[in-house]
Every structure is written in structure tokens, then in C-alpha cells.
């Protein structure tokens, strides 16, 4: 009304928030159920064996995807759509885009739910979804979400953006760029693609995407959530504006560099690993800045609101992030990482972050929002309290046994006697692991029950709502705050009268961060800087792996492409998600090379499309599997893993024994691989013949050891399992074939050559080669 400027009115659109919140809770419950099913498979591997779409390797990535995209994703969208409108004093720029965003996102999740159990996967960690879904994610994110969000910022009625908006903005911009990492593939069909990068490059790309997906989906935007909802719920001012600024910029500047720390001691060049380690340490500290800010904000409210369950959800969530941050910093240190990498510890670490930090914050936010969105009191406050204890108890039951399992696994893998011999077999940790998995299963069930309590409470509250929602109308004078002059007095240094150099005075003023207020006025500046940091990290860390491939991945002459049959075997390995339980990466650590053989070289992996290094060793490493077991052993083991090792958690792959090899497909695979640079020659025309010859020779080996000639109507040499066995017998064979052996059996076909190699090279540890030279 001032100065005769007309008043403007606006109101917020909460229907989109209601949609996203409802989806969050429903998908959260679905994710918990899938996770419980997956966890029970480890305990009862025989229960569903023989059904391909119900196997651990296929469903485990689905559980992760559901928690990431469906639970955390929808949850953070609800937070963003609610708080952005209020912080910008304007409704979202476009209702239609919001609507499109919501429904297309749910469609993406539904397609993940359909495709992953079918074995339609890229086989790349955290980036399993096939290319059409990845393209959809990118499009939905950029066109339906980022555009709407950015235009809302542009049309805001606040001059400056609040700290939550910086975090949201960073996540929105960065995810547009990060998503591209999942598209380093060449489509080979509507639901099939081949990775453009191989071996070391692909492994780094996988983790570059994986780490930064976790960073920009689970950490950065959730800090935005914290900075908005925590002071709201606690009814307290944020502890420190300066700490908010430092929290934001340190997190953005260092967080995006951390990916290589997930690949310590692997074939990744060591310079990248060191970079990941140092930035990992800084990253942990940067996260702690936000944790400190949130805890100090909550501290002031402890007396008034400790009885409030919402407060408890937030407090516990932030504390868990603090624990995860310290852990993250520790895990970035190479020698500490070596202790627990590939063990259950890492899974527990992810669970702590996902359920502890993201889960607790989403639940706290949901309980805080529900009465506001439905404009009526919660159906039951006691149920909220009950859910808090179920969530916390379930979470602890998931995480603590996971840590214990990790420590025991580490001990079993690493223990050596006085003479430097390994003390335990790999499988010796299995009985303890099974006990811990049962506890974790109980934890998952408790967590899922908590979700049911919440859904009931949410549904009953929804039923209680009044017929039509009241939409409050806000007024502001038309001049708007945006064109108000820069707020706050011109800063004066405390050193103004002191006898110091001018630069000291300037530094003093600079360190008060008043200059940042100007930055907060420009979404473009913050967005641009975030994009710049992401691109810089990509150029420094990832690009050299491609540009300077010869020095980062020294080629090895002995390494030959896979034979056509092995290529099909590898395809089966990827489809079945074997990498969810088996690594293919022997690290240069004494107990590891003693157990598996020489450590993996970058050059051996150049034909691996995609890399299958793996993250978790529920079963042993397979990088040097060649010749360790007979083909007949593999045949029996695939049919019934518990026959040899009753404690094995591996499901039966009987269906691979019953399914015929598709020789047409082998030709397609060879052509596709050749198109992407694998040097094939005679394979291009004779792939089917070569494959059947190799299959026959493996089948002959199986039969000669007492295996069956046929299974039902299917001949052994025609079974897909034979292709998988061919691949397993090839793993690590190239480097370990003694040169003498090559001269002896002058191979007639490459296929026969591989079989021979597989049989004679039995994973010779580097220790033994050294022993040869020691007097």
C-alpha cells in the first residue's frame, strides 16, 4: 500500500506437496518390504531358487533404487515444493510442470520395478536402470523439475535466497550434469545398451555417478530440508548464518571430488585414489559443519520440545549424519578403508545414511507437514511416538549387526598365522554372518512395521480432513522486497581505528561474509558456480583416464578379447547381478593376494564392458577364478551351491542349466562389442561355430568328470550355464597362463586355447612368483 503501489496477492499450491508426500510414504513402505524380502534371501537362499526374477542379484539393486529414487527422491521433492514456495513468497512457477514431474517420476519408479527383476540392467552400480529410463530421468529432471524450480527462483518476492534454496539449487543443477554419467552407453536395442567405457574408466565413471548421486540426492538437498524444517519445528533461529555459508560452499567445493575414495587399492591409478582420500577427509568435515549448525539450532529448543516426536526424528537424523560423516572421513583413509571395504560394514554404512539420516528427516518432516497439509490435527500422536521407537530400533538392528558382521569378515579374510599363511577359509565367516543377517532381517521388519503405523496414521488423518482445503491468500505491496536496497548497514571493520594495514581491515570485513548477501540474490551465480565445480572435478578426475589412457591404464599384450561364448557368459553374469555378491578386484594386500592370486592390473580389464568390480563380497572374489575349480564343480555349484558348502548364501541358478544358449544372440554381442572397439577378427563371421565348439569342449570336460550329458531334453553343451562357466574359467587366465604351456598345446582355435589356459593356470599368487627368485 506504500506509496500507492498496488498490493499483489498470492497463495501456495500444497496439492503437489500432498501428492509427493503420499508417494514418499507408500514407496517407502514398498522399499522396506522389498528390502526385507532381499534380506531374507540371504538367510534362505533355497526358498525361491529356480525363479530368475526372484533372485538376490536382481532384486538387491531394486531395493536400493526404490530407497533412493522413490523414498528419498519423492521425499525431497515434497520438501522442496513445500519450502521453496514459502521461501520465495510465490507459488511454483508452473502447476502443470509440477504435475508432469510427479506423474513421470512415479512412472520411472514403476518402470524400475518392472525392468530390474527382468534382468534388464546396465550392470553398473547405482546406475542399473537401462538407457530409456535413464534418458527419462534426465528429461524429467531438467524439463519438468529444474526448469520449474529455477523459474520459481527467478519470480521470487524475496530479494535474497535463504540457505535452503542454495542447497536445493545446487542439487538441481548438479543432478542435471551427474545424470549424464549414466548415459555413457551405446543403445543396442530398446532395452539393452553397451557401456562406452571399459574397465578402469568405466569403474571410475560408475562410482563418479554413484558417489555424486548420493551426494546430490541424499546429502545436499537434505541439508536444504534441515535448514528449513529444523528451525521451523524447533521454533528457533538457525545457530549461525556464517556456518551455513561455510557449510554450503565447502560441501559443494570438496564433495564432488570424493568418488575415487570408493576405489582404494583397486586398479584405479593411485593419484586418483589419493585425490579421493584427501577430498574425502575434507568432505567429512564439511558435512560436520552442517551437523554442528543443526545440532546447535536444536540445542536451544531441547527443554521445550524434547517431548515432541518431530523434534526427536530430526535430532536423531542429524546425529546419524554426524556419525556417518565421521565414518566417511575415516573410510577415505586408504589403510582404514582396506580393513572394511567389500565387507558388510559398507552396507551398514549406507543403511545408516539412508535410514538414519534421510529416513528420519523425511519421517520428521512428514509428521510436521501432515497436519498442515490436511489442515487438521494428527489422528494419533501416540502412534508418532511409537513409530519413532520402531524406526530407531529397526534402524539400529539393521546397522549394528552389519558393523559386527563387517568386523568379523575383515578378521576372517585377513588373519594370517606366524608363517604368513592364511588362517581361515573365506566361508568361515558365514555362520556368524547368518546370525547377523537374521538380526538385520528383524530390524528390517520392525522398520517396515513402523511404516505401516505411519501409513495408518496418515490415512486416518486424511480421512479427518475438512471437505475443502483453505488456501490462505498472502498480500505484499507490489514494489516487492526484491527491489529494496541491499539490506544491512555498510560493514565497518573493528580494526577501523587500529593501527593496521588497510588489507587487514579489508580481510576483517571479508571474513564477516557480508559480501555473500549479494551472491544470495543471484540464483544464476550460485547455479553457475556449482556447475563449474562439478565440471572441473570431472575434467580433473575422469577425463585424464580417457585422454591419457596409455599411462593410466598400461596395456598388457597377454590380454585378449573374450571369446564369443565367454562374451555371452559375461552377459549372463551382468544380467543376473552377480556383482552384487562377488567382486572382481584383487587388491595389493597380502592376505588378498595369498587367497586369490596376483592383484588386478588395470590393463587386464580393458575388455570389461561394463566393469564388474563390485562393492560387496558375500561370496569370494572371482577376478582369478580361472582354473580354481573344474567346470564340473561349477556346473554342480550353479545347480546347488549348498551341496559343497552348506553355509553358502548363494541361490541356485538351476534355470541356467535348463535354458538353451541363444547362438544368434552371441553373434549380436560380438558385433556390438566389435563396434565399440574390441578387436575381433574371425569371430565376426564364425562366432556361432566358435561358440559351439568351445561349449562342446567344456561340456566334454564336465561329462568326463562325471557330469550329465543331458538334462531333460537339453544337451549339456547347449545350456547357458556352460557359457557362464566359460566366462568364469577365463577370469584372470590371460595373465597367469605360464608361457611354457602355450608352446605345448599349440591351440587350433582360440576357444580351445582358452579352455586349456583355464585348466592349467590356477591363480598363482604373486607370492609364489617371488618365492621363485628368493634364494
Amino acid at each position, binding site marked *: 500500500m506504500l506509496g500507492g503501489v498496488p498490493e499483489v496477492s498470492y497463495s501456495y499450491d500444497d496439492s503437489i506437496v500432498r501428492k509427493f508426500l503420499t508417494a514418499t510414504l507408500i514407496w517407502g513402505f514398498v522399499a522396506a518390504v522389498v528390502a526385507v524380502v532381499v534380506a531374507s534371501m540371504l538367510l534362505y537362499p533355497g526358498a525361491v531358487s529356480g525363479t530368475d526374477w526372484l533372485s538376490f542379484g536382481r532384486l538387491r539393486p531394486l531395493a536400493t533404487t526404490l530407497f533412493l529414487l522413490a523414498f528419498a527422491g519423492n521425499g525431497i521433492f515434497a520438501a522442496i515444493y513445500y519450502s521453496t514456495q*514459502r521461501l520465495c*513468497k510465490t507459488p511454483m512457477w508452473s502447476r502443470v510442470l509440477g504435475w508432469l514431474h510427479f506423474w513421470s517420476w512415479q512412472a520411472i519408479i514403476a518402470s524400475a520395478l518392472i525392468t530390474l527383476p527382468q534382468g534388464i540392467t546396465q550392470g553398473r552400480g547405482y546406475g542399473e536402470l537401462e538407457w530409456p529410463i535413464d534418458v527419462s530421468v534426465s528429461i524429467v529432471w531438467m524439463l519438468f523439475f529444474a526448469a520449474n524450480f529455477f523459474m520459481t527462483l527467478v519470480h521470487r518476492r524475496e530479494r*535474497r535466497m*535463504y540457505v535452503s534454496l542454495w542447497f536445493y539449487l545446487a542439487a538441481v543443477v548438479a543432478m542435471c550434469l551427474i545424470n549424464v554419467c549414466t548415459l555413457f552407453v551405446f543403445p543396442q536395442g530398446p532395452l539393452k545398451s553397451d557401456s562406452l567405457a571399459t574397465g578402469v574408466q568405466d569403474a571410475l565413471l560408475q562410482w563418479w555417478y554413484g558417489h555424486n548421486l548420493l551426494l546430490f540426492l541424499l546429502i545436499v538437498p537434505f541439508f536444504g530440508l534441515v535448514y*528449513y524444517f529444523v*528451525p*521451523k519445528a524447533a*521454533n*528457533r*533461529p*538457525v*545457530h*549461525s*548464518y*556464517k*556456518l*551455513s555459508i561455510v557449510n554450503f560452499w*565447502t560441501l559443494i567445493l570438496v564433495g564432488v571430488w570424493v568418488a575415487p575414495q570408493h576405489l582404494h587399492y583397486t586398479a584405479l591409478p*593411485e593419484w586418483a585414489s*589419493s585425490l579421493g582420500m*584427501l577430498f574425502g*577427509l*575434507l568432505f567429512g*568435515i*564439511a558435512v*560436520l*559443519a552442517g551437523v*554442528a549448525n543443526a545440532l*546447535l539450532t536444536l540445542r*536451544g529448543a531441547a527443554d521445550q520440545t524434547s517431548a515432541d516426536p518431530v523434534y526427536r526424528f530430526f535430532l536423531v537424523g542429524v546425529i546419524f549424519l554426524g556419525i556417518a560423516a565421521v565414518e566417511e572421513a575415516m573410510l577415505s583413509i586408504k589403510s582404514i578403508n582396506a580393513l572394511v571395504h567389500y565387507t558388510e560394514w559398507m552396507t551398514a554404512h549406507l543403511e545408516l545414511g539412508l535410514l538414519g539420516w534421510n529416513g528420519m528427516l523425511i519421517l520428521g518432516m512428514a509428521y510436521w507437514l501432515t497436519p498442515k497439509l490436511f489442515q487438521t490435527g494428527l489422528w494419533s500422536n501416540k502412534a508418532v511416538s511409537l513409530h519413532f521407537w520402531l524406526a530407531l530400533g529397526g534402524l539400529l538392528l539393521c546397522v549394528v549387526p552389519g558393523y559386527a558382521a563387517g568386523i568379523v569378515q575383515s578378521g576372517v579374510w585377513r588373519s594370517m*598365522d*606366524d*608363517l*604368513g*599363511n592364511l588362517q581361515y577359509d573365506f566361508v568361515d565367516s558365514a555362520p556368524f554372518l547368518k546370525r547377523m543377517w537374521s538380526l538385520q532381517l528383524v530390524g528390517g521388519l520392525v522398520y517396515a512395521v513402523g511404516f505401516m503405523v505411519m501409513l495408518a496414521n496418515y490415512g486416518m488423518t486424511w480421512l479427518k480432513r475438512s471437505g475443502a482445503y483453505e488456501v490462505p491468500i498472502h498480500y505484499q505491496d507490489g514494489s516487492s522486497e526484491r527491489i529494496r536496497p541491499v*539490506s*544491512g548497514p555498510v560493514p565497518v571493520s573493528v580494526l577501523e581505528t587500529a593501527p593496521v594495514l588497510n588489507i587487514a581491515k579489508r580481510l576483517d570485513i571479508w571474513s564477516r561474509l557480508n559480501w555473500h548477501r549479494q551472491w544470495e540474490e543471484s540464483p544464476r551465480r550460485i547455479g553457475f558456480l556449482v556447475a563449474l565445480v562439478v565440471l572441473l572435478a570431472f575434467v580433473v578426475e575422469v577425463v585424464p583416464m580417457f585422454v591419457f589412457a596409455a599411462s593410466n591404464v598400461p596395456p598388457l599384450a597377454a590380454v585378449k578379447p573374450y571369446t564369443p561364448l565367454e562374451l555371452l557368459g559375461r552377459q549372463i553374469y551382468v544380467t543376473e547381478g552377480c556383482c552384487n555378491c562377488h567382486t572382481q578386484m584383487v587388491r*595389493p*594386500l*597380502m592376505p588378498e*593376494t595369498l587367497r586369490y592370486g596376483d*592383484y588386478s592390473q588395470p590393463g587386464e580389464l580393458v575388455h570389461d564392458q561394463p566393469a564388474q568390480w563390485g562393492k560387496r563380497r558375500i561370496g569370494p572374489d572371482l577376478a582369478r577364478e580361472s*582354473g580354481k575349480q573344474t567346470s564340473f564343480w561349477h556346473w554342480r555349484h550353479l545347480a546347488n551351491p549348498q551341496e559343497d558348502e552348506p553355509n553358502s548364501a548363494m541361490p541356485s541358478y538351476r534355470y541356467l542349466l535348463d535354458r538353451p544358449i541363444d547362438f544368434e544372440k552371441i553373434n549380436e554381442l560380438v558385433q556390438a562389442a566389435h563396434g565399440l572397439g574390441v578387436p575381433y577378427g574371425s569371430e565376426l563371421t564364425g562366432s556361432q561355430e566358435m561358440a559351439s565348439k568351445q561349449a562342446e569342449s567344456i561340456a566334454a570336460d564336465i561329462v*568326463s*568328470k562325471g557330469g550329465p550329458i543331458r538334462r531333460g531334453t537339453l544337451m549339456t553343451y547347449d545350456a547357458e550355464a556352460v557359457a557362464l562357466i566359460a566366462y568364469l574359467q577365463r577370469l584372470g587366465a590371460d595373465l597367469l597362463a*605360464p608361457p611354457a604351456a602355450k608352446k605345448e598345446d599349440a591351440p587350433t582355435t582360440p576357444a580351445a586355447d582358452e579352455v586349456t589356459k583355464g*585348466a*592349467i593356470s*590356477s591363480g*598363482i*599368487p*604373486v*607370492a*609364489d*612368483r*617371488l*618365492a*621363485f627368485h*628368493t*634364494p
Partner: protein
Amino acid sequence: MIQAMSDSKHESPDSNQDDPADSLTDQSFDGIQQYDHPLPVWWIWLFVAVLLFAPPYVWYYHNGTQGRSLADHHEQELAEVLKLQFSQMGEVTADRETLVRFLYEDSWLRVGRSVFKSNCVACHGREGVGKVGPNLQDDHYKNIGDIADILRVLQQGANAGAMPAWKSKLSTNEIVLVSAYVASLRGSGDGSGKPAEGRVIAPWPQAPPPETDVTDQQKSPE
């Protein structure tokens, strides 16, 4: 700043709990205010400490000096383990008595197994199943009548060089250990290896009575 506080729509924070120097920044966003507290000192030092640690770390591990990479470190560890193994073993003589003693020392058999794996599998196959060379898992032997003959064959070779002499390629310790391992393979087969060659010989001698020598000094590994 005091003015800013009075401007705020919110109830002012309970000032008796907070530092009197507390001040709020001048703007609230959707009712959220922010204190202007300084950064926690511990946080600044932690961050600075890592920043200071980084350059020397990078310089130390990546200035090109040999022996500092993870792979080099692994080689050093290996060498130490081997040194340890042979110092525990002492200088043994390649005679029948020593061989029989090591035949019943499981932890030493494992060392022998690594020697076998790196030198013998090319001809004798995985775990001695036989390939070009004879099967070592059955009771049939071509050039062996007594356990001590294994030492002789290893040192001097057999079959006119088809089995090479290893005397100059392996140390005495290694010859004894790999002989013990080969002897231990007897009877381990499942019949799937190479068909038997040679004749059946008498079983190996029984384990010697426990004695007080170098192998007793080490703890039993399992």
C-alpha cells in the same frame, strides 16, 4: 542489530541461555531467523589441519620415489613374509628325515604348495592331477620307490630331462618343502586325474615322534 531483533516477528530467544553477544541477522525468511554466531573454532582448525596435511601427503607419495606406492608396499610385505618363513625354517638339509618331518607339518606344506603352484602346475596340473607330467595324487609312481627319491628326482631330474633338474633353480629349503607337498598329495585325488603310470609303492613312513627342534618353537598355526 538490536533494531533488527525488535523487528523480528518471532518471540525473541531466551537470552539468559545464550551468549549476550548473540545477534540475529537482519532478515527472516518465512519466519526463520538466523543468528550471526562465529564459526566453531574446532571446525576451522580441523579443516585447516587437513588442508595443511594434503600437500606434504601428495608430495611424499607421488613425487616419483620408488617403494612408496601401494603395489611396492605389497611387494615389501611379501618379501618380509618369505624372509620370516625361511628364518623360521632355518637351513635344512635335503634328507629323508627332514622330508618326513615336514610331510606332517601342515603350515609348511602350504608354503610348499605355493612353490608347487608357481613351478610345477604347468606339467603336473592343478594339485598334481597330472598333465604332461604324471598324476601325483595316486599310489603309482614312475621314478620313486622311497620317499627320499622325490628329493633326488627334484634335484637331478628324471626321464632324460622331461622332468628338469631343479637344484639350480630352487633353494634347498624350497626343494624340501615342495617335495613334502608332493608327497602329501598322495591319495588326495578323486580319480578324475590323469590315468596312473608306474607301479604301486609302499606307503610313506609314519610321522616321527615329537621332537624338540626348530619347528616346535613356532606355535601351531591352527
